[in-house]
């Protein structure tokens, strides 16, 4: 019997290696795998490359992971926000590398990794500093920039419902990067608010089929504002 549920976060995290590229789901406070990120902090892997939309807020979660010196490099679209002070301090001190990627290109590069596309051409960022030194060509009358697939060793994501095959649903804007990252990583670990019996999820409404999910942990934490 396939059963992707693991008993606790520590078991889910056990084999994440130093030097891994870790994809972190979520947009704002919604759909963030907060307990898995805490688990990663606990677990101890270092020299990480983190891919996420933001570069952490406050002093918890990703910001804490960075503050502990465990993140060598961050790939994101929006490094600076109201309280991204940890990132800013590290960055100013030259203690963290940064790659800024337009948000759509970031999503598409991960989608490419999940779909077996090595690279693609997009008009986004053409003629801007973010395309500097990148290959370009004109296609269909538009100048386009060559962007490469961005896959992860590990994806940490949050779901609303999960069954033992690893099929996932999300809640409203909690979907965001999570399904894209699930497909883009070699090892995908999901925390889920709810456990669904196999066969109880509508096969027309499963957003991430279990093929993309390796491990699931039940974390019914409730309100994302908490």
């Amino acid at each position: 019997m396939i059963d992707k549920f693991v008993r606790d976060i520590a078991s889910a995290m056990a084999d994440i290696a130093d030097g891994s590229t870790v994809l972190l789901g979520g947009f704002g406070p919604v759909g963030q795998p907060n307990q898995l990120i805490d688990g990663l902090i606990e677990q101890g892997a270092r020299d990480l490359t983190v891919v996420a939309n933001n570069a952490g807020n406050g002093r918890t979660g990703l910001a804490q992971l960075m503050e502990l010196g465990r993140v060598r490099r961050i790939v994101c679209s929006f490094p600076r926000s109201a309280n991204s002070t940890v990132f800013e301090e590290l960055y100013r001190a030259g203690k963290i590398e940064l790659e800024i990627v337009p948000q759509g290109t970031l999503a598409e590069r991960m989608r490419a990794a999940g779909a077996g596309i090595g690279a693609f051409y997009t008009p986004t960022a053409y003629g801007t500093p973010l395309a500097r030194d990148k290959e370009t060509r004109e296609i269909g009358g538009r100048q386009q920039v060559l962007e490469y697939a961005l896959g992860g060793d590990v994806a940490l994501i949050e779901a609303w419902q999960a069954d033992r095959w690893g099929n996932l649903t999300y809640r409203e804007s909690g979907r965001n990067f999570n399904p894209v990252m699930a497909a883009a990583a070699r090892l995908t670990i999901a925390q889920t608010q709810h456990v669904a019996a196999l066969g109880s999820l509508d096969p027309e409404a499963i957003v991430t089929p279990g093929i993309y999910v390796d491990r699931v942990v039940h974390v019914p934490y409730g309100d994302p504002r908490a």
Partner: protein
Amino acid sequence: MDITTWSRPQMAGRLAADIPEGWCVNLGIGIPTMVADHVPLEREVIFHSENGVLGMGPAPPGDRIDPWLINAGKQHVTLRPGGAFVHHADSFAMIRGGHLDLCVLGAFEVAQNGDLANWATSENDTAPAVGGAMDLAAGAKRVWVMMEHTTKEGRSKLVRRCSYPLTALGCVRRVYTNLAVLDVTADGFAVIDIAPGLSRDTLAARTDAPLRFV
């Protein structure tokens, strides 16, 4: 000399009046968000938020907040009947695939050739936050900019050539400022509306780029 100017709600209302029913529209973070409040609910305009919400409705009353439903500015919003949720790659496929009828963005500078600078204030800023700005600017069918005509220091934001790092080349079709509404044409900025009582000469004096009055 004081001049007559449009207030922000007036700018938002002026822009909202130009959005026809049925358009799919993304409103950038900041002032453009105000536009939604000026589109009457009975005129069905489908608002898109890049975090995967299509058919976004107004902010809920405080006691009806749904914590899982936020927009790209991380504010709590609602979903209208007919709305749908998609993931980030699908959401940006809508943007980048040319499916949005309109995107309204704020800007630091708009050049007379339609170049847009709205994400970084210096080439030396090595960690500016781009978010979805470049995708929206390059991908939407139309980009309209909503911004003050000048900086706080009085410098024109409608320029001959952008001095800030670009967001996208030649993407802006129309600009709504507190002083005027201007189309970006092959011959530069064409003024199609001007704040009540404001003279052409005064407008031209406040604008770096040359203006045509049509």
